[in-house]
């Protein structure tokens, strides 16, 4: 069951979503990789799903006015914590995806906490 820990977090707004066009997927089998850009206030999260060595990975880069460090919690749909990683100096993080499904990311920065919901991996 999903915990209610994130209910008070602000939700990141999806700004741009690009993925293999259906026609291109049909014709060229590009796979289900995608790239999304989220925004909360002046924070931008550039999140991509990439397949490396047949393993799907979420690769993110947080762009903030002042890089102050922080943590990323990778949460399953039922609320279970899968992994918690510290943001690198460049604001980058990399998370292996265990299986297809829907996930959430909780971002904890020094001055801000927000959640990225419905990160779909198929």
């Amino acid at each position: 069951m999903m915990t209610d820990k994130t209910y008070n977090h602000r939700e990141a707004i999806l700004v741009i979503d690009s993925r293999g066009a259906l026609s291109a997927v049909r014709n060229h089998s590009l796979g289900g990789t995608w790239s999304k850009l989220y925004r909360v206030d002046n924070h931008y999260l550039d999140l991509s799903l990439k397949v490396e060595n047949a393993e799907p990975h979420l690769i993110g880069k947080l762009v903030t006015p002042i890089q102050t460090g922080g943590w990323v919690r990778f949460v399953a749909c039922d609320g279970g914590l899968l992994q918690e990683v510290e943001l690198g100096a460049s604001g980058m993080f990399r998370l292996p995806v265990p299986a297809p499904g829907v996930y959430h990311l909780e971002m904890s920065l020094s001055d801000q906490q927000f959640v990225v919901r419905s990160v779909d991996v198929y």
Partner: protein
Amino acid sequence: MSGQNRIPRRLRLARVSSEPRLGQVVSARLIERLLSGGAGQAFELTLEMLLRELPGVEQAFLWVRDSLNSFSLQAVCGVPNKLFGQEGPEAVVESVLRQAYPGTSEEWQAGNPRLDHEGHILTRVLNTLPAGFEQSIQGSVVNLTLPLSANRQVWAVLHLHASAQALNEAEAGLVAQNIAGVAPILRELYLREAAERQSLWLEAINTLLRVSHERPLELGLQDALEEATRLSGAEGARLIAFEGHAIRIIAQAGWGSGLPVEAAITRQIGERLRSGQQVGIPRYDLYPGHRHELVEAGLRSLFILPILRQGIEASALLLFSTQQHWLPDAQTQELLSDMAAAVGVVRVEWSLRRELAWAAYTDPLTGLGNRRAFERDLEKLANRTNDRMVVLVLLDLDGFKAINDTFGHVHADHVLVRLGGLLRSRARAGDRAYRLGGDEFALIIEGSSTLNPSRTAERYRALLEEIRVSDNTYLRVSLGYAVYPTDVPDIESLWRIADDQMYKDKALRKGRSPLFEAKQELFPPITQVQTPLFRIASRLGEVLNMEAAELRVLQASCYLLQLALGEIEAHSGVQMPDDLLREAARVLMFVQTPWNGSQSLQAGVPRAARVLQVAQRFTAALQGIEGRAPRGIDEALEDIAREAWRRFDPVVVEALRSIRDFLDESAA
């Protein structure tokens, strides 16, 4: 749970009501109400009935599958719509709904109802309650989740949210039983609407694929964009092509016609499109690279589909809206992809058709229209409704076979390429040039009555005669023209008359005669000049069987030469029309050109010039040249004969020898 077998009050105590009600048997009236509107209305009607029949149930939600993997919220009851915003919540993937369902996978697929007491159901589906969505139920709550299954696949999910006392297992079972009665109707309505929507898309796509070749492709594309805008719920659409770093609009429809919406495609977005990715921008105003003028104009969301096709430039289909979060749903995205593919196919087909038409109507060597194009255009002229003057000029290259034989086919082809380039680049606007075959060319010239056909044709001849074949040889051109309606009463006769004229000109030029044979009667012979040179030259012309017109040119050039040398004075009685003057001047241009031994390459030198050379040399010899004593007739003839084949045309020298008696008489 208490009251396991309790039947809901309203379901237990059916009463006469004007409102449709749920029952174990679906009434004809309910069916009639459900079928009276669209699927959306039927969904809402069903939820309203549930809330009315089940006191304590506060809210109802119906999720319906809209693609292979996602469900969208199609109806809500007991909640103000505004809480979900104008577009409602985003679609959720099936696994989210499945995770929120407290039963097993088998129960999910079988469509078994399950109750839970874990707070509001939406917090598990959406992970949060929408802003302003406060729980209205005090105390403990219960959620009923009822998957609606058909053919072992869940096609919709019903959520009821109630106070804990309002629903128990028995009532959940009854709800499931009752919903099972209307679910097939709801599903059929929904599938029918989806099929109708799909049918409209397919109709639009088929219309595009069948677009008439008689009208511009852009109009067909615009129709398709208008349909795509309407069916996808967008407000505007645009089809663009990438041309290097520039973007060209091919067609557009709907809102934003004056707005450079395509400017929203930044370099990064352009790269994604070129790599075959589609791009959705639900909040363009939050996009870091947004253009202020587009946001100020109201642009809020875009969906961009790449169209990648070999043979034409990359292009993209844009759909956009002034509403935040507008993006086509998964099914619409798929249909849009089909339309984008159709756009690509149609553009490739038109591109190929254009190339085919170009190849079918173009001479590949010169780039001019070919004979097929010429015949087609003549036919069009015959069927036209206006009465403008039409001049058909036929051109034939003189001695082109000799150019081929002397310089080779590659060089000759270069001459033709140069000719084609000249005609294409220097032709008057609107004049059409064709290569009819070999060294035959045609020009169709349309103009007003002020057009001077002769001057225009001669201008083209002069243009082509600028083409250098070798160091001292230029292209020579015979031409004929005919004018509608002056020369011929109908367009069909133009070709025949122009052809006749061209062959007459060709014959005259082969005989070193000028073009104006048809007008020769207008020019009286020059009889006023009787110098020895004039008499000998005229006699030679007669011996060489010169036509009257060519003879006039010989006489005129002789007259001009002696005038220029100060040997005679201008005679007022001599008529010298412009055409005659020009031909005579052309003869004088060649009068110093020596015979070079090759008959075939002399095609450009008028025969009158050869005659004048010999006659002038003979008369000068009799008078004494460069301090030498005057020669006798035989001596002069022998001198000239020695230079035959080297300096003088041997045919003319022979003709001079043949008039030995005449020369005696002239000398006497």
